[in-house]
């Protein structure tokens, strides 16, 4: 009975495509070539929905219809020759595509990171770290998903793992089943939007938009979506605490190591005074080396605030250089400059080194930041926050904007607050984060940062990311031959899947263009006399609908080539369109019946959790995705600000 219903859904969709085709198109023998193109398009959707491997559907259709298209102008042997040439040239173009080459590298990085088995530590430490806020388990789940999904990009694995870790934790704390399921499925899909994502590479290759700009552009919309999810969960938890009750106290307890218990004052003591005290008195029986080491670790938050601010300072004050000379020079510029003014000096000298390290060697970058310099800078920064922004700055640099000093003040405030609350327990949590959250974030941010700031091309950054993935796996003692072998084989399969699909679709797109199907669609769309807003709404609506039966790969490679030529008629920036599409396709993952996230979760959920409950849980998050889409559309600067600041135009 149930199966019937789902089959009906598919058949109705198919009929919705086939019937208009037959009604509106003339009989095949007196079709024009453009109409043949439309026939091809509707046939391909039907064939894909039937479930044949899409790459070969596209390839076969493309060959047959390309031959027909050439046949309109030339005799059969000539048409056959042209078809074969077209095919092999398209295939070769994909084989030498220097954008798609990043795909195997990022995929490889993802599999390695996934197998480093960080997720358990990541989830536990995040949960402990934010134990006090409403809906803490759900929020920790979302953050874990965002970080882990971004680093790995493998939705199935992330949802399954979170279904094994977070779902039980939430159920034990008596969280609402629907809310828990929605959080896991929606969170697991974030990786497809937040760069480095394969979707954006594929879009960039299809639309000839620079992947660098796409990454820069998708960064804030991705964070915004994650932020909206978190906000939604917290608000619901506050309004109705029974949806997300506080976890039982034993789950929120931090286990202190032996030496920490021996510190005088016991638990709930501030970490730094306790350590200093122990160091001075020397009678706690804890080795000095260990105490010093712990003190070093405890001072890490300082450099964590200072290093990003430093990078920002460089970027913000060297805008002129960025515009004229290109981005690779930044590091050199700052290092070579003698430092003209009292204020510019400390940040400049303290910072010319960390950024380079932070970028090139992912994990442990923070550790490398010299602790000795750390105390100096906040003082200078605080002074700076108090004095008028532009006073005493080097004249060769443009003064840092007001928002930068605002950030400095914020950073200082966070640091002070942090150390006021820095108990021995918090210190333990911090160390747990240091072993899970920070290495992953450092890997992602260094890959992204080096791309966005122009230190490396996306391909180079992908290669460094893959190498970083290996280092990460090695650091967690997971880099066995077995793990590498599995990652290598999976990478080959995923790459072959995506790239063969691209071969198929580029042959298909060529045939479609040859037949002139594109012109018919263009004429038709222009004939509707739409305003740009109406066009955008229509385009996004079509993509949203396509997301129900189809997967994102198919939508990007088949339908983007049809939309893209229309953009220039309506003065739509392909970059902006790409961001909207990437956000829109998030819904494709949560829309039944193809919502694979739901099936992965169902696969590891207790038997009484039904698919319907999971679907119901996903719906609010789909609504949030639409809200995010709306926000991005109304405030395009969410996405376009960063690319504009970095690359101008």
């Amino acid at each position, binding site marked *: 009975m149930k199966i019937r219903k*789902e089959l009906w859904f598919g058949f109705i969709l198919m009929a919705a495509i086939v019937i208009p085709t037959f009604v509106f198109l003339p009989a095949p023998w007196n079709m024009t070539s453009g109409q043949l193109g439309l026939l091809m398009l509707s046939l391909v959707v039907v064939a894909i929905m039937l479930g044949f491997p899409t790459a070969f559907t596209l390839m076969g259709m493309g060959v047959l219809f390309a031959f027909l298209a050439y046949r309109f102008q030339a005799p059969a042997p000539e048409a056959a020759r042209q078809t074969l040439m077209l095919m092999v040239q398209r295939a070769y173009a994909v084989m030498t595509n220097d954008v798609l080459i990043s795909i*195997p590298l990022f995929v490889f990085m993802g599999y390695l990171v996934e197998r480093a088995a960080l997720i358990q530590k990541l989830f536990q430490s995040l949960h402990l770290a934010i134990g006090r806020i409403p809906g803490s388990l759900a929020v920790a789940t979302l953050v874990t998903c965002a970080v882990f999904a971004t680093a790995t990009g493998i939705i199935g694995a992330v949802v399954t793992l979170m279904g094994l870790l977070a779902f039980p934790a939430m159920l034990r704390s008596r969280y609402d089943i629907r809310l828990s399921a929605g959080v896991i499925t929606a969170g697991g899909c974030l990786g497809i939007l937040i760069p480095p994502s394969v979707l954006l590479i594929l879009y960039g290759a299809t639309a000839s938009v620079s992947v660098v700009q796409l990454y820069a552009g998708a960064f804030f919309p991705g964070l915004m979506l994650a932020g909206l999810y978190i906000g939604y969960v917290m608000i619901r938890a506050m309004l109705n605490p029974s949806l997300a009750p506080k976890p039982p106290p034993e789950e929120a307890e931090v286990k202190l190591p032996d030496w920490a218990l021996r510190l005088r004052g016991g638990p709930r003591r501030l970490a730094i005074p306790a350590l200093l005290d122990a160091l001075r008195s020397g009678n706690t029986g804890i080795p000095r080396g260990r105490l010093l080491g712990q003190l070093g670790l405890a001072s890490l938050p300082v450099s964590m605030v200072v290093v990003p601010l430093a990078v920002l300072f460089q970027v913000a004050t060297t805008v002129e250089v960025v515009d004229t000379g290109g981005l690779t020079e930044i590091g050199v510029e700052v290092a070579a400059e003698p430092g003209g003014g009292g204020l510019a000096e400390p940040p400049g000298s303290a910072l010319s080194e960390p950024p380079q390290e932070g970028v090139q060697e992912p994990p442990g970058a923070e550790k490398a930041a010299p602790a000795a310099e750390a105390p100096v800078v906040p003082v200078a920064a605080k002074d700076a926050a108090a004095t008028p922004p532009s006073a005493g700055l080097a004249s060769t640099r443009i003064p840092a904007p007001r928002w930068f000093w605002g950030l400095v003040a914020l950073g200082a405030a966070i640091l002070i607050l942090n150390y006021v609350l820095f108990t021995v327990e918090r210190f333990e949590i911090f160390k747990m984060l240091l072993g899970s959250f920070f290495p992953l974030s450092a890997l992602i941010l260094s890959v992204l940062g080096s791309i966005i700031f122009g230190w490396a091309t996306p391909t180079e950054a992908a290669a460094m990311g893959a190498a970083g993935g290996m280092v990460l796996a090695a650091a967690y003692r997971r880099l066995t031959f077995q793990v590498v072998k599995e990652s*290598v084989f999976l990478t080959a399969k995923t790459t072959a899947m995506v790239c063969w699909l691209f071969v198929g679709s580029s042959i298909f797109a060529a045939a479609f263009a040859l037949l002139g199907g594109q012109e018919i669609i263009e004429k038709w769309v222009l004939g509707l006399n739409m305003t740009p807003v109406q066009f955008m709404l229509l385009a996004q609506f079509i993509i949203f609908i396509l997301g129900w039966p189809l997967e994102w790969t198919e939508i990007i490679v088949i339908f983007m080539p049809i939309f893209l030529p229309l953009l220039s008629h309506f003065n739509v920036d392909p970059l902006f369109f790409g961001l909207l599409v990437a956000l829109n396709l998030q819904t494709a993952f949560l829309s039944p019946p193809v919502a694979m996230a739901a099936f992965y979760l169902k696969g590891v959920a207790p038997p009484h959790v039904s698919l319907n409950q999971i679907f119901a849980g996903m719906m609010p998050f789909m609504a949030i995705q639409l809200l995010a889409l709306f926000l991005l559309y109304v405030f395009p600067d969410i996405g376009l600000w960063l690319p504009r600041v970095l690359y101008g135009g």
Partner: protein
Amino acid sequence: MQKLLLRIDRASTWVGQAVSWLIVLLTFLMTWEIFSRRFFDAPHAWVFDAQLQLYGTLFMMAGAYTLAKSGHVRGDVLYGFFSPRVQAGIDLTLYVFFFVPGVVALTYAGTIYAADAWRIREMSSVMVDGPPVYTFKTVIPVAGALILVQGLAEIARCVICLRDGAWPSRTEDVVEVDVDKLKRMVDVKDEDIQALDRFVVEQERDDGKGPRP
């Protein structure tokens, strides 16, 4: 028959797994080149061609392997709900109508294309005296032939399935989401999941009593 099919599977798998190691080579080559260029100021012009050739060979030659493991993405709106016989019928039809013409054309065109390149011993034109390209172009017909053979094996599978009403077996391989392996990785047992059911049932019973918040 089944033996022959599995042998073809194994051949595709062997080739695919052999070339998949190129990703490690690619990673190291590019990492080395980045360091060499940025820190030792010694760029190598041939690396650009080499990395593309590694990538192109990797995905083309892995195509048959992916097909042997059913790894090519398919639309799953209806397919999963069909009985095996209907699935096999659809697959068989579409293999004959789309797959065979497409792949045969690709292989044939690739042969001509590669033969032309061999005749003139074509070199890369990205830079002066670039590396040879004719060997790289040979990948197209070879990969096409491999995937064609694998496709014929799949067609035979469809026929067997139409006859028997069940899909013949495939060789095992590492899969992207291996639930059992993931369970071991995070140390969750089936009993633990079973035990959780209590909470689900409780919540559903409570929901039945009062209005939903």
